[in-house]
């Protein structure tokens, strides 16, 4: 049974000043609006490609979005910043309206674009549960019924009658999420709320959301940049780019498709490691010296390249590790300067390369995890740092053309006695 039907939604925004620029157009538009007609100047709009300068004064934040959601489906919406995900959620949760198209929804909707919306710092936790619950559309008696569970889930039993301004920010977030977790809508719309809170809480939150969708059969729309969370929660996905749906499928292929759009160089934020006197500058993959935007073929020699700046190595032992996984999350191999060569890094800038022989990888999509250790203690780890795809290479006539049954076909040393 379809519970959400999105039909040709578009959303346009005016650039620069509000208004068309002339009074007559403004009036024309106002009259059209008042009669419930579409905006006569909406046709001027262009697609939302921010790298290009626009002449027309309007952009499409969303264009012809069309999909439907089945009951019990957990749909992940992914895309880069500014692709239009949040606009879509805002339209679905009735915060703003579409410029054209329509959405039909069956059942009660709760949207969690933020946790703890409207909570007042001067009020106690108990009062805020009621306030926030009501804002989310719960009835008073409903909240009373679930009050104990909410307090328990948030883990704040001791502080129920303390004003929440005395709470740590983590506690406030937990409280907000706890209220949201006990909403009982048929459809739940969630935007990145899991990005807050500590690891333990995030686990709890993801777990709760999974419960909601699997055991209680509710429909969830989930937007996040956390691919691990998206993959573990969602069944299906849509990928939005420049305001259009470019891909619609099961979540795994959707995520691979999204990550593939990036080039093979990841700049890592410098601030993360300043306390360790190291800076992991970038990690990338290439086949020539400069170009990280290469396409890879089976017959290419491929280099994984990292740049790490170490202020003073002292007698510390630094090493880095790459792990390569296939699309299904199966671990394929680990490469580390510890395991293979006991190669230590030096003070100053380290440009670290490791090379794969040609024909090492078969056609397929691979995910790289990256770890950095100092004295065998992990200081940084990043899952799915980037994804690369190996295309099938040139084949001689008559050669086997199918996809190799195995991922890795290394060149090894042979000896025949």
């Amino acid at each position, binding site marked *: 049974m379809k519970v959400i039907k999105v039909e040709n939604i578009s959303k346009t925004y005016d650039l620069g000043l509000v208004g068309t620029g002339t009074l007559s157009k403004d009036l024309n538009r106002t009259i059209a609006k008042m009669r419930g007609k579409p905006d006569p100047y909406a046709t001027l709009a262009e697609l939302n490609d921010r790298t290009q300068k626009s002449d027309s004064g309007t952009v499409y934040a969303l264009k012809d979005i069309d999909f439907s959601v089945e009951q019990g489906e957990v749909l992940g919406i992914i895309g880069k910043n500014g692709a239009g995900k949040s606009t879509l959620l805002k339209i*679905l949760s009735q915060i703003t309206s579409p*410029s054209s198209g329509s959405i039909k*929804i069956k059942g009660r909707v709760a949207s969690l674009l933020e946790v703890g*919306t*409207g909570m007042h710092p001067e009020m106690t936790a108990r*009062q805020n549960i009621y*306030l926030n619950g*009501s804002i*989310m559309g719960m009835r008073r008696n409903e909240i009373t019924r679930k009050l104990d569970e909410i307090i328990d889930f948030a883990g704040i039993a001791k502080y129920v009658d303390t004003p929440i301004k005395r709470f740590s920010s983590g506690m406030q977030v937990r409280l907000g999420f706890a209220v949201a977790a006990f909403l009982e809508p048929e459809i739940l719309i969630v935007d990145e709320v899991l990005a807050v809170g500590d690891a333990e809480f995030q686990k709890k939150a993801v777990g709760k959301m999974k419960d909601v969708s699997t055991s209680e059969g509710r429909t969830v729309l989930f937007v996040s940049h956390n691919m691990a969370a998206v993959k573990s929660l969602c069944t299906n996905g849509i990928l939005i780019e420049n305001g259009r749906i470019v891909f619609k499928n099961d979540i795994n292929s959707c995520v691979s498709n999204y990550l593939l759009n990036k080039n093979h160089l990841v700049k890592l934020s410098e601030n993360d490691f300043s306390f360790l006197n190291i800076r992991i500058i970038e990690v990338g993959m290439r086949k020539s010296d400069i170009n990280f935007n290469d396409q890879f073929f089976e017959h290419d020699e491929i280099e994984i390249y990292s740049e790490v700046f170490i202020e003073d190595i002292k007698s510390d032992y630094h090493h880095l590790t790459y792990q390569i996984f296939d699309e299904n999350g199966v671990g394929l191999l680990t490469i580390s300067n510890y395991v293979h060569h006991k190669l230590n890094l030096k003070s100053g800038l380290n440009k670290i390369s490791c090379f794969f022989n040609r024909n090492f990888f078969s056609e397929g999509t691979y995910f790289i995890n990256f770890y950095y250790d100092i004295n065998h203690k992990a200081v940084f780890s990043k899952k799915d740092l980037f994804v690369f795809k190996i295309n099938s290479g040139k084949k001689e006539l008559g050669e086997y053309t199918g996809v190799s049954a195995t991922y890795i076909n290394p060149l090894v040393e042979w000896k025949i006695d």
Partner: protein
Amino acid sequence: MKEEWDIIIKPKRSILEIDFKAIWRYRDLLRMFIYRDFVTYYRQTILGPLWFFIQPIFTALINFFVFGSLAGLGPQGTPGFLFYLSGPILWQYFQDTFTKTASTFVENQAIFGKVYFPRLIMPLTVLISGLLKFGVQLMLLLLAILYYYFVSGNWSMRWEIVFFPLLLLIIMIFAMGFGLLVSSLTTKYRDLKFLIDFAIPLMKYITPGIATSYVLFIEKLPSNLIPFAKYNPIGYLIDSFNYMFVGAGSFDWLTIGYSAICAIAFLILGILIFNQVEKNFMDTV
């Protein structure tokens, strides 16, 4: 089979499509918002709710001094202090309700941007929680009236006070309607906010019933300004209020009727426009 949908989101809604049912569904939220205003208003102040009293008393004293003593505009046969207490109390309720309603979208954009509920809940909250302060101050006025009765034997209340609830209703409708109308405009034109912030307190002084009673006010006014005073519905309401409570003013069904019609017209227009603006204001605010 015909498909049944609970929510249909469309680009525009027709001008008369106002979801009063949704407002009723969210009545618990209205209650919580009022409760929030109630418990947080004077948190962490030393004098707490005493401020409810301090404000009008000092306003009354200053007004009494400036208008009553210096300008000699005080009412006849009524203690000046009482007069300068009553008018400003009602005016203050109007002003608070109006200015807060007028900035509904701007003040609440954080919460409006994150969650949907019928936006009219916010102005309704302002309207009702303002009554609390007004009610407390009305008690103060009654105390003052009793005090003057026991001290000087002067009983200032008139029997027309039975119509006070009606009067209050009209002023509520007026403040909300006018506020809604302006709120819809402030989302686009922020200038209005500045205009309101200084124009409304100034308007107080050209409203009959604050500085002096309606009759005296018209008398003193240059003849070319008289229409401004005559068409001002708030003036009639405050003058009637003064008449009911402190016996200085006038009570006339004609002028009350006029004010009521203005108020209802503002409210209808205000709700219609507010309802149109609320759908898309996040894009312009």
